[in-house]
């Protein structure tokens, strides 16, 4: 790991002024991704601003039934929090399906939003990667790409977004609050991550001098009946091949509310709006669920090692939605 200047920020203003004064600075939260990337010399900040002492570790109820989560809340604490387990079970489950007990104790909510891809060529500094080195080329297209995306890819990048938590946040229409010396703004989580296009190294809407301070999750009645399912190469402690976050509310046999997002298959946490459109007011049947999944995946582009994900995603979406129905075909 290269040397760097270290600053432990005592308060938010100090952190924001420090980052605006230093062009090659990184905020350090739990370190589970950044420290690893620095050790591999993929990230080489001159200055590291430790934000773990900032007062951003609270989970609070919002008026109207939503929840505000501080950016430094640890993943394990959020997954176990009674408000999250009760109102947004899909979010608790998504977090618990990521990483390990040890990593979830370290990793923060803000860091999870900003974690970088696990595409093997992004990590392999001997191979070309447009995300790591703009213009270098993409080794994944002709190489090993089992764990890359089938939705939202470009000729420049196939890398899948690795987060489980973000898939649930996308389904829940969460918003990210970010702060800089220029002020505060809120970004819908579905706009926070960018498609790779011709600039796969630009991964989010966050400016270099902005700090993620919180995530706000709006109230959603259907979220009480929600689930996360993750399909992977081993039973636990592995990134997703395919994952599905879903919330479902059925009334008189028809879908009243359906929220759907996919992980493992998208270059960003993939909100399945096309599937939701098909599901709107459709009969709550397996056939309709399948049609919705198919509509979402119509745009998917498979390659030799990852084309299997398209059908796997379709079947997983259908299975998760079916699981959200009670035995009489309604929702609780």
């Amino acid at each position, binding site marked *: *790991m*290269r*040397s*760097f*200047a*270290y600053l*432990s920020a005592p308060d938010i203003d100090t952190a924001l002024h420090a980052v605006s004064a230093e062009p090659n600075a990184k905020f*350090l939260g*739990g*370190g*589970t991704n950044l*420290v*690893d990337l*620095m*050790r*591999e010399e993929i990230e080489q900040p001159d200055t*590291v601003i*430790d934000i*773990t002492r900032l007062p951003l570790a609270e989970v609070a109820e919002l008026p109207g039934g939503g929840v505000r989560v501080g950016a430094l809340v640890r993943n*394990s604490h959020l*997954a*176990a929090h009674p408000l999250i*387990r009760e109102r947004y*079970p899909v979010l*608790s*489950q998504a977090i*618990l*399906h990521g*990483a*390990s*007990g*040890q*990593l979830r*104790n*370290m990793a923060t909510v803000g860091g999870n939003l900003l974690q970088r891809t696990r595409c093997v060529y992004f990590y392999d500094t001997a191979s070309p990667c447009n995300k790591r080195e703009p213009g270098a080329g993409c080794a994944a297209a002709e190489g090993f790409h089992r764990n890359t995306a089938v939705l939202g890819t470009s000729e420049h990048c196939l890398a899948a977004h690795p987060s489980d938590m973000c898939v649930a946040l996308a389904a829940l229409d969460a918003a990210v609050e970010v702060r800089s010396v220029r002020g505060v703004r809120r970004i819908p989580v579905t706009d926070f991550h960018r498609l790779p296009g011709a600039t796969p190294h630009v991964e989010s809407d966050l400016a270099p001098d902005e700090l993620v301070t919180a995530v706000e999750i709006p109230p959603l009645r259907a979220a009480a009946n929600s*689930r996360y399912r*993750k399909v992977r190469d081993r*039973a*636990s*402690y592995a990134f997703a091949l395919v994952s599905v976050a879903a919330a479902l509310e059925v009334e008189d046999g028809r879908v009243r509310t359906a929220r759907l997002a996919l992980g493992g298959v998208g270059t960003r946490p993939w909100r399945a709006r096309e599937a939701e459109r098909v599901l709107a007011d459709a009969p709550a049947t397996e056939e309709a669920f399948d049609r919705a999944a198919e509509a979402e995946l119509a745009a998917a582009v498979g390659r030799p090692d990852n084309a299997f994900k398209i059908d796997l995603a379709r079947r997983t979406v259908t299975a998760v939605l079916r699981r959200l129905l009670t035995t009489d075909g309604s929702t609780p």
Partner: protein
Amino acid sequence: MVEVRIRVNGVEEVLDVEPRVSLLDTLREHLGMTGTKKGCDQGACGACTVLADGERINSCLALAVQYDGRSITTIEGIDHPLQEAFVRHDGLQCGYCTPGQICSAIAMLDEHARGAPSAVTEPAATAAPELTGEEIRERMSGNLCRCGAYNGIAEAIAEVAAR
């Protein structure tokens, strides 16, 4: 160099470290406490697991400077029934992952006792779920064992959990 004060197994240690030095290297190379093992050094194996104020973490991904003022417990500071149970159930062959397994299992039992759910816990459950074999394996999935002593590890933990 940055001065950090870390309590390690109850003893206050004052160290001058470079900011890039991991907690794992601080323990092993600066304090000579080699009980905590370096496996992958990238958060994928769990051999470096220690307790930070009672919570399990991967010390390879922790910078020592971030743990200034914190209390760390390593295998050298542990005297727990799990250790004897691991021996009796053959929960190891080479033993390299064992310090991390023991630290992880102690914190895992504590998490479970506090009612923390896991990925295999039924979402609607409000009380602590029964610590079945499936729950133990899921909750311990952050600790790999290349010898494949998982059956013994799971049995040792189940036995101690049932006491």
